[in-house]
């Protein structure tokens, strides 16, 4: 069992390490991992023609197994045209609107979740590798500030739970270190696959904090900070969580 909160130099731990043996087994076995259904749907979407351009993702990118390998480890990534970091979901929608001439997919809708799970899956087992340069840094700092700021009616910061109290229990649930190692992932409580931003909304709602809209810059900055904080940790997409 996990003991008391540790000093910062102690090894970082994925949410996986805090799970029961049964839940881990679900993630370990592709046949038992319900998230794989979304991955399968994503593969079909990858290969299906769409939009005014009548082109599939595969028409430009070829076989995702090769071309998408490692991509999810670098997102959110700085986009020169948007002049800010964009999430993987936003990157997918940029391709949809600009290259496929199709309507953007809804955040948390089944298609965007399926495509991001399929793309994420191509990096499973690889280390998270956010690139930090001068362009990206201000956004990282904004995300860090959100992480450390007390907010909401309960006046709690992310750090108070996930840095100061990880390993302890909140109403019986272990508090993790909040490393976004497995998204999108299948959450038993959701009975479905959800994005990192959906998970963050859960924590915001729990502290009675006004949540950000999906895709909002503040959310992407927070996501960027969390991914950077997890640099080097292994990507588990599609993970399973309680």
């Amino acid at each position, binding site marked *: 069992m996990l003991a008391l909160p540790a000093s910062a130099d102690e090894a970082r731990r994925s949410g996986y390490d805090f799970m029961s043996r049964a839940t881990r087994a679900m993630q370990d076995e592709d046949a038992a991992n319900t998230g794989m259904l979304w991955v399968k749907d994503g593969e079909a979407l990858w290969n299906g023609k769409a939009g005014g351009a009548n082109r599939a993702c595969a028409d430009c990118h070829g076989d995702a197994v090769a071309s998408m390998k490692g991509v999810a480890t670098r997102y959110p990534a700085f986009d020169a045209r948007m002049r800010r970091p964009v999430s993987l979901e936003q990157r997918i929608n940029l391709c949809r609107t600009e290259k496929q001439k199709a309507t953007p997919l809804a955040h948390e809708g089944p298609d965007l979740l399926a495509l991001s799970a399929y793309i994420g899956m191509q990096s499973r087992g690889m280390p998270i590798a956010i690139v930090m340069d001068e362009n990206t840094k201000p956004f990282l700092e904004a995300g860090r500030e959100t992480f450390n700021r007390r907010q*909401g009616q309960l*006046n709690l910061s992310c750090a108070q*739970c996930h840095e100061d*109290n990880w390993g302890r229990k*909140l*109403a*019986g649930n272990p508090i993790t270190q909040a490393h976004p190692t497995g998204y999108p992932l299948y959450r038993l409580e959701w009975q479905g696959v959800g994005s990192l931003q959906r998970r963050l909304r859960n924590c915001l709602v729990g502290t*009675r904090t006004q949540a950000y809209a999906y895709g909002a810059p503040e959310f992407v900055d927070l996501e960027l900070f969390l991914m950077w904080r997890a640099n080097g940790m292994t990507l588990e997409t599609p993970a399973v969580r309680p």
Partner: protein
Amino acid sequence: MQLLMVFALVCTVGSAYGAGDTMPASLTGTRGDPAHGRAIVVNRQLGLCILCHGGPFPEERFQGDLAPDLKGVGARLSEGQLRQRIVDSGKISIMPAYFRTEGLIRVAPAFQGKTILSAQQIEDVVAYLATLRD
């Protein structure tokens, strides 16, 4: 009138924390109801206490361990100290201030301008905690 008094009390005693850690006067002028207080403490949407605290609530399977066990807290602290602790301890702590609306940011719309518990609910909780003597 009574509300105004309560407000003045919270402001003065709340900010003067450090000089004393106690708030002897009832927020409502009367004693709370311990049975109501217990129901509030174990309610995960209302009191939220057992998200963080454990305590003598054998029927509650999932309790927190971020905070001291509430068992025996009525023997450790006076009613005034318990009240101060819940209203706003003034300490840098993870424990929310239950009777405070100022100095908070990005409060969800449904909770804006509202305290976590009402004066009456806090008195009920104080009355209940005071019974936890062993």
